[in-house]
């Protein structure tokens, strides 16, 4: 049972379509889905003006087209699956509770902000603030997984308090800023000020990185949880090497301007 939504044409203005979740659509007849309101710029229009709707409503929604201007897809969803064949816009899976979102292309800013559970997979790259807290809030993502195969930009995992973010490529500045708990794994190069203001939590940086002076070098060791995590990520298709599985890791504690209970791990190669 798959519902298919195809973008009629790439929109010229942002479209807000927070109604596209399996929770909302799985019970509705096609005719009603077509009438659901979405915002096209500042105008409210029926969903059918932006998408053609076909297939059968159920647990899976298949979206097709360049949706880099379509925001809030899968926001607050709790179950089912969304497959996006193309790019996705900002606020993808915002405050998501469960279910799965898979994007074949790139995603915009704010992937899974304040996410509580479920999994978001981005085959391409993601914008700024993946898995972060919205502005003003202290707590970002608290559970679930965000798997980005490409690169991510600034402030991934801002205020994160649980769950897992894995970034296959490089990431921007301030990864894990103000983290409270949870895990961020970065396979590519990390930008500056990684982990600034973190209270607790773990950041794993696979490439050499510049550590803030408010982080103190602790030791070199083999964390027993890490191979388990990395094997899980390898199964999800991330570029985990055998060397990373067997390496020993250098550990820094920080951030001393906050609680100083966080850690940055980096393989000593």
């Amino acid at each position: 049972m798959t519902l298919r939504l195809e973008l009629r044409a790439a929109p010229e203005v942002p479209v807000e379509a927070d109604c596209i979740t399996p929770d909302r659509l799985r019970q509705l007849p096609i005719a009603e889905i077509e009438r659901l309101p979405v915002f096209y710029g500042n105008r409210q229009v029926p969903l059918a003006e932006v998408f053609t709707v076909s297939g059968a409503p159920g647990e899976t929604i298949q979206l097709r087209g360049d949706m880099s201007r379509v925001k809030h897809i899968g926001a607050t969803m709790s179950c089912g699956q969304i497959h996006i064949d193309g790019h996705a816009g900002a606020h993808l899976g915002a405050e998501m509770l469960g279910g799965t979102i898979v994007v074949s292309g790139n995603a915009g800013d704010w992937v899974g902000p304040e996410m509580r559970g479920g999994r978001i997979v981005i085959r391409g790259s993601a914008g700024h603030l993946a898995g972060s807290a919205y502005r003003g809030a202290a707590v970002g993502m608290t559970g679930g997984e965000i798997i980005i195969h490409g690169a991510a930009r600034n402030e991934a995992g801002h205020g994160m308090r649980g769950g897992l973010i894995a970034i296959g490529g490089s990431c921007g500045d301030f990864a894990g800023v103000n983290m409270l708990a949870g895990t961020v794994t970065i396979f590519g190069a990390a930008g500056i000020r990684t982990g600034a203001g973190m209270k607790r939590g773990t950041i794993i940086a696979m490439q050499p990185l510049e550590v803030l002076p408010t982080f103190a070098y602790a030791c070199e060791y083999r964390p027993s949880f890490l191979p388990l995590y990395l094997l899980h990520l390898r199964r999800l298709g991330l570029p985990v090497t055998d060397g990373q599985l067997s390496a020993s890791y250098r550990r820094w504690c920080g951030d001393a301007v906050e609680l100083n209970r966080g850690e940055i791990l980096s393989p000593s190669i």
Partner: protein
Amino acid sequence: MSSTLCIVNGSVHDPANRIAGEPRTLFVRDGRIADAVAEPDRTIDARGMVVMPGGVDIHCHIAGPKVNLARKLQPEDHRRDPHPGTRFTRSGSGGIVPSTFATGYRYATLGYTTAMEAAVTPIGARHTLEELHDTPIIDKGFYVLLGNNIFLQQLLRDGRRSEFRQAVAWWINSTKAYTAKLVNPGGDEPWKGRRNSNVSDLDEKNDVFGISPRQIIDAFVEVANDAGFPHPPHIHCNNLGHSGNFRTTLETMKTAGDRRLHVAHIQFHSYAGEPGKNPGSAAREIADYVNAHPNITCDVGQVMFGKSTIMTADAPLAYMLRGIKKAKWINADTECESGCGILPFSYQEKVYVHALQWAIGLELFLMSADPWRIILSTDHPNGGSFQSYPKLIRLLMDRDFRKQEMQRVNRRAIARTTLPDLDREYSLNEIAIITRAGPARALGLRNKGHLGAGADADITIYDDHPDRERMFSAPRYVIKSGHMIIDNHEFCADFSGRMLHIAPEYDASIVDAVRPFFENYYSIEFDNYAVPDSYLHDHEVIPLRPATG
């Protein structure tokens, strides 16, 4: 031109005119209550409904620089509570500190038609007037902070009492304020100069000017009573929130003697115990004093569980609280006039102090012998939002509901109060007093808080629902200055309320005394300081009282 109206069959509560739930017919013409209207344009059948004057909030924080800082500090709060526009009204955002438009509309949807912003620095008056102009429906005014003003304290130090009087009048005129507000009088300036310094006793002379809070309070009480301000000095006493502060509060009230004084959010000033230790309740001592002294009015500043925002000119207090909360806060510069501290806060049922504060507020309400002088407020948004008034009304009117709520809070705190023994239930008429007639009388607003001929036609009509929280959350009709604003629960018009202010006379020569001080110490030009009349838009000058001798 507003249309004429007639309201029939309603159960009218108009305590100022000794009408307690009797069927009366009301007429409205030209924005005022009239004795009769021959052929009204519209007749409302209010059968089964309760008719009251529009609500009057005597103490809230709804406009000005500090309110705006609190808005900017909490985007996460606005996100959860959008306030959509309608055909007639504008959009905004809600939360604990709503945007200006949402503030006006949300007051109206509770049946409130007047609200007084309780603390504005003189330098923030211009900004405040602009925001109040954008706060729709309600009539409004503000109290100007003068209790920590450097220039005024210098005049008092030098014993220049007559110039002090002129300067206070000049400041009120220059800002278009409604009365003088004192916040932690004498304490902010030492704190601004040195960390953790403050005054804690009413007779302690501060080390900046060598004058005591008592001297400042006495001087303002004298000026306001002699000049006949319709509302006396509005005071936030020293030692807010500290254990044992009820002694300071009693001393403050005694300083006024038999002259009029309004004590703001008195719940925060009714704590027994020793400084630095856990507080207890001193509601009995405070309520007894207020009950026995008809010159004193107060508002309660009830704490309601849930989100709040501390915003105060009592900067030392905000600094102390930020050490407890350990989250974001703001301490803003107010030049030579006051202090300012803002931090998001929340009151929790299980926390001893919060539960005690909640219980003390209710004790004060229930121990009040004269509802005209113990007025309903939450010190919005310090004790909780004004949007929680309906729940507070239910707590006062419904003993069973109150007992049920008591079960949910910290037992140890409740055990240190007399709340479980207080069986009183407020009547609808008493609610009409503490939310309407009382505050209007305390403010000296002769045309508000009642429904006699000549009064402003600010009227709310509620369904007489047994669940008082539900009833007071959603009036069926709200009429402001004779205009139908909410018709059958829906907004049907927008309206710009009036600015209420006073204009005491002063000797123009005082300007020459203030000017050099300004030019030496302020960041803005003196000539740009006084707010011109063009900022007033629609306004009303409330006349001074005849001298009491």
